[in-house]
């Protein structure tokens, strides 16, 4: 990415939390993060809970103060000029932060006012967004009365109301039912089609795969890999992934299976052995089973899949995304 186009840029961005007892955390939550996100991109931060994704968004949206490093959004230094940077960002946080003292309509109306819209502008924008996000019939309702999916839609509507240069979505579909999740994905696609830059975090690999043009895989506050989902999956150097559950020492099985013809690599991960195959792997499966049997290892279960971003994560970290 050309740096001139970057709408989000971080250099050495680091956050080390201070515990209530005044002691600095042993490991930084975000560790020297260098990131560039281009105009008009949907960029994903994929990683397990505790990877530092939310802290990264927190720093980019001025709510978490970095321990060191720098960050710019829309060319504005978020640490030095947080009030100005806030004009350019829209945020949907993980929890429902709707204003419970206000109605659905008022949540939008006052948000517009906070961002300098006149009463008239804010009213018409609120009504338009309620229509667009299928909430018009709930306009006068208390936000308590909204379902999880509706509350999430209202939060997205609110976050884009002031036309932010960057929209931050922190785990936008966590806790949503499958249907709400699909409609959220649709909304994200449409916003992006209209030119909205979006940075989202997720621990759902399907979400990163389906939505994002580029994905940074994060763990322990660091970016382990960054590319398009297609390239990331290609990096595994396999077109088929076989997961073998067997009794006995996984490392021994790794040694046995690595030598089988058609296997590009094998590794022990999350209590099983992951075998990456090249060339369709049609004849390879029986050979794997025979090799295991010949080595005296009982295979309990075998599953076959195409490489996913999860495969990439496992091959990078040796553990699963959700553990």
């Amino acid at each position, binding site marked *: 990415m050309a740096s001139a186009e970057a709408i989000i840029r971080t250099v050495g961005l680091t956050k080390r*939390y201070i515990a209530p007892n005044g002691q600095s955390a042993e490991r930084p939550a975000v560790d020297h993060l260098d990131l560039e996100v281009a105009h008009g991109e949907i960029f994903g931060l994929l990683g397990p809970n505790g990877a530092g994704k939310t*802290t990264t968004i*927190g720093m980019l*949206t*001025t*709510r*978490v*103060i970095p321990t060191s490093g720098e960050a710019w959004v*829309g060319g*504005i230094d978020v640490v030095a*000029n*947080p*009030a*100005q*940077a*806030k*004009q*350019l*960002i829209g*945020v949907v*946080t993980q*929890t*429902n*932060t*709707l*204003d*419970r*003292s*206000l109605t659905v309509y*008022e*949540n939008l109306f*006052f*948000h517009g*006012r*906070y*961002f*300098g819209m006149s009463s008239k502008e804010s009213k018409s924008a609120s009504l338009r967004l309620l229509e*667009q*996000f*299928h909430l018009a019939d709930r306009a006068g309702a208390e936000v308590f009365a909204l379902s999880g999916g509706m509350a999430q839609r209202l939060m997205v509507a*609110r976050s*884009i109301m*002031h*036309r*932010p*240069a960057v929209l931050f979505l922190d785990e936008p579909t966590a806790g949503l039912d499958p249907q709400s999740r699909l409609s959220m994905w*649709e*909304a994200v696609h*449409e*916003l992006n*089609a*209209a*030119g*909205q830059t979006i940075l989202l975090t997720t621990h759902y690999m399907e979400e990163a795969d389906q939505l994002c043009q580029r994905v940074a895989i994060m763990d322990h506050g660091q970016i382990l890999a960054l590319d398009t989902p297609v390239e990331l999956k290609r990096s595994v150097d396999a077109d088929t992934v076989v997961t073998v559950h067997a009794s006995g020492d996984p490392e021994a099985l790794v040694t046995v299976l690595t030598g089988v013809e058609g296997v590009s690599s094998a590794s022990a991960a999350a209590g099983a052995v992951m075998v990456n195959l090249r060339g369709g792997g049609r004849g390879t499966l029986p050979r794997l089973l025979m090799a295991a049997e010949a080595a005296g290892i009982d295979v309990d279960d075998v599953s076959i899949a195409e490489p996913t971003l999860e495969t990439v994560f496992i091959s990078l970290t040796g553990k699963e995304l959700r553990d």
Partner: protein
Amino acid sequence: MATTTITLTEAKPTTQAARAAFIALLLRDLTVLRKELGMFLARTIIQPLLLIFVFTYVFPKIGQGVGGGGAAAEGFSTLLVGGVIASAMIFQGIQAVALPMVQDFGFTREIEDRVLAPLSVNALALEKVAAGAIQAILAGIAVFPMALVVPANSVHLTVRPLYLLTILPLGAVMCASLGLTVGTRVEPRQVSLVFSLLVIPMTFLGCVYYPWSTLSKIAWLKWAVVVNPLVYLSEGLRLALAKGVPHMPVVAIYVVILAFTVALLRIGIAGFRKRVLA
């Protein structure tokens, strides 16, 4: 969802955007107040109404106590006016600023959307104080007529506008700053304790029912209560409303109210930053 082309916001000058946000946040708080006006009046009026009723209506009627009968009772009713207004203001200042923070900083962190409004976190804290101060003044105004009408004997007020129009807003800001300090420095689930452990003692020892100078007979108490901000507001409002009732030096009233305001604002804003930013 209809696809519309998005035109992005360009960053406006920070002060301009912050001013608009500040005003909009105030409007939001006043909207919430309007919705809860009944509750606001109930929680503001009930306690002072009962207090005035019992002390200045029931007692004189039944010939029991405070201030004795006749002129002394009138004197008491008169000095009580400033006191109950002051105590209603401090009660409301804490209530209006500290209690919503239980929800704001609670599990859902409802305040997040307001934190993301384009103004500094300090300005957001000041907005909370401004909204609280407005409510404290409204509380004072709501209590005022009761203090005039309810007593069995006549109340003699001499309004000194210059004092009233300066002490009322200054005192209101002090009360709301105390609310900010309490709301940010006390654990959310312990805020309700604040009323029994802080507000009640402050009220009873806040020169609400007696002028400070009369405490000379109990010298240790006279000097112990100088740490209570309510003392200065009670004294100040009596200065503004009740001629002839003794009060502490005018300069002391203004200087100490200002000093408390500055100190509480500093502590409160620092606490607010700590709560809002990680």
